[in-house]
């Protein structure tokens, strides 16, 4: 069967599953949109509806504690019919978003940057999965499906992150800059993906056009481009909302965490229980901690920038203030790109079972805390700890595998032997 036929079949199936869920269970989207694991205060569709309502009734949606999402979403969704009465258009949009993300993922796979970069080529480069398979593991990942059905706006962020990666791995500068700027405009932390993706883009450009342009100029132009794009988006949204107060309501909320609604991350309970005098300090520390991974990984794994970017999405899924299973879905669907690393990963069964158990126990414990009243907050908090631990184990293990892979290229004689780190 030809690749495009397979693709058509796969996408058709994925779209069918989503639309079926939307139509067969009309109350499912609302139910899922209410789940704390799926939609956070900064991505919830219900809050987006509230913001839309205020926006269309000429009340500033940012003069309130409910809406913390990007201003440009408002005109976009105000074009669609009211989702509480005619949800079909919205559902179609989110389905399309997932499909576009999948095709972007396929482009990444086809670029082959995951195994062979300019400076490095894995010794197991033939151990790969077809783009169809990877796209399938993205489209049919329950986390992705749930995110799509809950219509959480982090699906959009995921789409643009994937697009940015795809374009970077094709060396298409402008689209790459554009997509990345939108992603970081939507949810701020993707800006950290810029350096690795820039390297990736540079490598691809150099390999394509055999002439190696000066890296400094390249960096300069692209950085300027990114700054311009983001500045443009911000000023456009300021123009739309009529003031700059959206900055504090969107990015300010992500930075300062005033809304402590539970989520699968590590921040909410920590800052619920934090002493007031130390809150600002620890906010700084936590953000520093998130940012600190980017330079380290980029420098150490200079040869595999795409892997660095993928790993960073994993970091985001664990250590950002408002993570949801959507971020985990993004990371887990990027991992299959690096099929060639699986042989060297060690704690995968452990991590997998941890994540699975957390997936089952999380809702149960949340129910015990919130509805049955027979458990307290610590139950759910413990599960978020387990979940984060499982994900971070996967991340660390994959990094180990990547380094080991590099080692096998540098010192082929060590293949299959035990190694130590000193």
């Amino acid at each position, binding site marked *: 069967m030809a690749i495009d036929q397979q693709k058509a079949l796969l996408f058709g199936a994925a779209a069918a599953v989503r639309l079926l869920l939307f139509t067969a269970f009309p109350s499912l989207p609302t139910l899922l949109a209410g789940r704390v694991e799926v939609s956070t205060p900064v991505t919830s569709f219900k809050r987006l509806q509230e913001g839309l309502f205020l926006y269309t009734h000429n009340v500033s949606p940012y003069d309130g504690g409910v809406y913390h999402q990007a201003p440009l979403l408002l005109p976009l969704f105000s074009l669609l019919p009211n989702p509480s009465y005619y949800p079909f258009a919205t559902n179609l949009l989110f389905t399309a978003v997932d499909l576009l993300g999948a095709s972007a993922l396929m482009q990444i796979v086809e670029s082959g940057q995951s195994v062979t970069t300019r400076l490095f080529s894995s010794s197991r480069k033939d151990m790969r999965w077809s783009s169809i398979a990877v796209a399938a593991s993205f489209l049919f990942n329950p986390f992705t499906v749930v995110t799509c059905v809950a219509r959480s706006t982090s699906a959009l962020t995921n789409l643009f992150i994937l697009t940015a990666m795809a374009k970077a791995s094709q060396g298409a500068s402008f689209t790459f800059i554009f997509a990345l700027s939108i992603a970081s405009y939507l949810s701020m932390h993707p800006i950290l993906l810029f350096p690795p993706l820039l390297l990736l883009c540079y490598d691809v450009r150099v390999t394509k056009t055999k002439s190696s342009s000066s890296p400094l100029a390249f960096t300069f132009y692209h950085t300027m481009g990114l700054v311009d794009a983001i500045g443009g988006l911000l000023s456009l949204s300021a123009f739309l909302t009529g003031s700059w107060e959206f900055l504090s309501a969107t990015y300010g909320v992500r930075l300062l965490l005033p809304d402590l609604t539970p989520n699968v991350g590590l921040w909410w309970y920590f800052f619920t229980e934090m002493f007031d005098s130390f809150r600002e300090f620890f906010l700084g520390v936590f953000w520093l901690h998130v940012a600190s991974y980017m330079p380290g990984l980029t420098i150490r794994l200079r040869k595999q920038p795409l892997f660095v970017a993928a790993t960073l999405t994993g970091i985001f899924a664990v250590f950002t203030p408002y993570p949801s299973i959507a971020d985990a879905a993004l990371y887990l669907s990027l991992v299959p790109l690096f099929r060639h690393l699986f042989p060297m990963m060690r704690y995968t069964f452990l991590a997998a079972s941890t994540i699975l158990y957390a997936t089952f126990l999380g809702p149960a414990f949340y129910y015990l805390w919130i509805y049955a009243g027979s458990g307290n907050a*610590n139950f759910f908090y413990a599960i978020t700890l387990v979940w984060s631990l499982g994900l971070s184990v996967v991340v660390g293990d994959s990094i180990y595998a990547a380094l080991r892979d590099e080692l096998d290229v540098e010192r082929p004689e060590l293949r299959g032997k035990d190694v*130590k780190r000193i």
Partner: protein
Amino acid sequence: MLSFLALLLLHALIAPALAASDYSERLLLRPLPQNALLASFNFRSNESSTAFEQQNFRYFPRSLAQILQHAGTKELHLRFSLGRWDAESWGQRPWNGAREGGTGVELWAWVEAQDQEEAFARWLSLTNTLSGLFCASLNFIDATKTIRPVMTFQPEGDHQNSSHLHLLHGTLPHEVVCTENLTPFLKLLPCKGKAGISSLLDGHKLFDASWQTMAIDVVPVCAEGGECVLEMEQTVDMVLDIDRSKRPRDNPIPRPLPIEEIECDTSKPYNAHDTCYPIHKTTEPGFSLADLYGRPIKGACPLTDDEGEGANTVCINTPPERTIDIKTDGAYVENKLQSDTLRCYKLPTGSDFDLVLPEQQMTTGLVHQEPPLSAARHINGHGQEHGSVQAVIKNPSPTDSVEFVYLESLPWFMKPYIHTLRARVSGSSESPIKETYYRPAVDRARGTHLELRMVIPPSSTLTVTYDFEKAILRYTEYPPDANRGFDVAPAVIRLISPASADNKGIYLRTTSLLLPLPTPDFSMPYNVIILTSTVMALGFGNIFNLLVRRFVGADEVPTLGAGGLKGLIRGRVERLRARFAAKRKAT
């Protein structure tokens, strides 16, 4: 229909009283169904505004006056309320609800200021000083509990420059009104509860009432001539359960009555010496002021004037056939008003005065006027994540539709989704909402403020629902006392049409709501900090460990080879042994 007439005239005859004299007080008693008795006390004292400016106060309490001057408050309304008015069986509210507040404490005032900031600063100083004066925690009315209503409240008084006036409104639904609020309230009266009807006001009885509200209203009133007086009105309305209030204070326990005193339905076939189906008493219960309040009225307050309407201090609104005995040594005057349904008495000075109504079988009763609206509000759904508020407002009148303003003031941690706001009228499809004013809450800065102007067609039911989400607070933001949940202030309803006869307006309030929030484990800050930090450290340490170290083959490392666990342990053991050996050498 008699009593309907009576009601209208009551307000009418109280109205001239204020203009006439500088101080007047009145007690109006009205027996209600189900052995209840409405007693509404009313005290008015006027002060000419010139005298007020010069700070010479005759009847007006100096303490309050200075507070008002200091805070630049032109009009003040303060309410302390407890319990529920049972409109279904008691009918129309006293004063059309204009002199009552929501459960707890409610305060609104028109403050004179140049801009919002100044107004709010003055408002804060007002609340703080008032809380000192009334022993209430009014000082907790901060920015998150303060709103600026636009449609619901209208000034009662006549103000010259209303451009600089700012209306601010705050509520404390959780405040428990009690004796320590009554004492300063009485202190403001000229007779201080020593004489006059105020001598009846006693904490034990007042706070045992089924429903009671204390109100203080300070309003500037200007005659046509331009001569303005500052009028202060103190009101206490209470509904007493006659049986309960008649119990002696030394034996308040409602023990079962001896079987002889219970009226049995002898028509029942099974009626026997040990079987008694109680029949509902049809006679009006007997009572006297001394029974209800534990003491009679200690004579008239000498400051009330002796002639005219102002002299009618104690009035009772009963059918003419009801016999009323007066127990007093002094001289009193009885005059009957409104075809005898209202009997008013001029109190004797210096001697006790008591009304005694014997138990009596009545043939006629007073028609109790139907309230124009009835409202109930509840929280739907369960769980501590989200829910929905449902307000049901009924218009009993078969003929005319009612237009009203519905005011909600919600705390910031209760986050309403206004896009889910639905208002439905039973049997009609078009939306009853005519106008909406909405100011969303900001976390920890201000509360939600929602005002709706709506119309109910005759004899139909209006249902307002909206979803909300419960925020989880920082553990320092939960009150230290028992976690009962947070109280949500009652909704205020003001009728626009039919408009009220006077400028006080017709008001109606729902009951308050209980909002349980999800709670963290308060005993765990250290554990949480430690555990979370541990997980982060694991991730961070693991990854950076990988990033900074260098790989070499296992066989290239001398220490503890790839012998697995055994080799490892052997290595450890050897290391220990070496250390001990070293120690031994050292010693």
